[in-house]
């Protein structure tokens, strides 16, 4: 079964990515986690995402197309990266989510590919 882990990061986490004093520690957390995931042989795909202030969001309002700067919704925590993993069940996927270096991880099962 394939699941997507969605890692949500706080403003502070996003700031740590570029803060010279905290950058190393922040990145190390991810390095170790990615290492453990890869060694377990379950990774299908994974990628970190640039900070939400770099995002562009397309929205159609009443058929009219509008593009806005920033993320879809202004929330305290924003999507910071994803991993698609191949594990037997949701329990195992949650186990891996708990090991992630962030405080909020959403887990969803992936739909099968469209034919």
């Amino acid at each position, binding site marked *: 079964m394939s699941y997507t882990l969605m890692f949500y990061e706080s403003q502070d986490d996003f700031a740590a990515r570029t803060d010279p004093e905290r950058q190393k520690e922040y990145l190390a957390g991810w390095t*170790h*986690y990615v*290492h*453990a995931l890869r*060694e377990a042989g379950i990774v299908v795909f994974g990628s970190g995402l640039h900070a939400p202030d770099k995002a562009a969001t397309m929205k159609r309002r009443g058929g009219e197309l509008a593009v806005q700067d920033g993320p879809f919704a202004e929330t305290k925590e924003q999507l910071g990266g994803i991993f698609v993993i191949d594990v037997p069940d*949701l329990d195992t996927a*949650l186990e891996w989510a*708990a*090991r992630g*270096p962030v405080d909020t991880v959403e887990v969803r099962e992936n739909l099968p590919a469209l034919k």
Partner: protein
Amino acid sequence: MRMDAHPNAHRIIEQTASEAYGRLLSYLAVHWRDLQAVEDALGDAFVAALETWPKVGIPDKPEAWLVTAARRRLIDRARRSRVSASALPTLLALSEEAQRLASAGADLPDERLRMMFLCTHPDIDPAMRTPLMLQTVLGVDAARIASAFIVKPATMGQRLTRAKAKIRAQRLTFEPTDAEEMPARLDAVLEAVYAAYGSGWDEAGPADSPGRSLTKEAIELGRLLVRFVPGEPEAHGLLALMLHCEARLPARHDDEGNYVPLSEQDGARWDAERMQEAERHLHAASQHGRLGRFQLMAAIQSVHAQRLRTGRTEWGAIAQLYEGLVQLQPTLGALVGRAAAVAEAYDAHRGLELLEAIPAAAVASYQPYWALAGHLYKRLHRDDEARTAYSRAIGLSTDMSVRRFLSRQAAML
């Protein structure tokens, strides 16, 4: 604002709910096998108490009142669903017994041991035995159980419902029917209580274990079990093990919240009362002259505790106890623990040899293995391997303070 004639009522109801829930539920369930229906009925009875007691006062026998109210719900339900006419006499008899006991001033019989046996019936999925026991015997809510076991709450709820439906549909029995079956069934109960505590504690250094948020509940189950089967040495052993581990709780983190491994803990911060209680149970267990894995695990923790008096850890003794444990049941925890003890007692090479003999596939996501591997490689100055192992251990940890501790260890390379 509503004026309550009996302001203490709410407090008494809460108290009764936390103290007697499992007892009342077990008592009702023994007579009325539909666990789900009994839970619903008892829940309704508590709601009725919340509505009634503040107005009319607390009944003389709150528990008998609740049983009677729950019984009434069960009868209503049975009538509505016309389950079977034969069920009604059971319910009526149940109510009569409750009334009779209440008027005689006697307590309701404690059926929680039978409930523990039911929850660990061989036909119940082993993974669901502990959650079922936590919910029925202690009244822990499903959402908390789900979080402790890192399971989606809706999934946990469904699995609990399914287990209860199975108990009803297959008419699973409460206790073993013959003496031959007894040891295996008791073992299943012990195993389920141990799983509530969360294994892996301190056995091989900086291990973390997700089940930890229910340690108090696990100890409560352990105490109950010892009360019900005082002649069973393994029940004493299991309780001693949990109490020794729990005694270390105040020393596991320093004042800044940093994780402190067992060998570096300040023994003065250990909970002396819990350790004494643990030792009493270990002693009680030893009177029976029948060794088991929980007694061995407790004995290992007891040797660690002796450092408080002697100032040193007898690693040789610990290694021997682990050897015994591996002979009895070579679990991953025991194998990794033995490697750690041998490394401390003799030399790191021998410890590493034992560690590396564990099949790689078994440890791909077993954090204690990698934490110990990092430690041993470091001691042997195999820095690159140490770095890789520490990295795996950090990536597999769920506890922030353990992660930080391991990062500091890796940074010292």
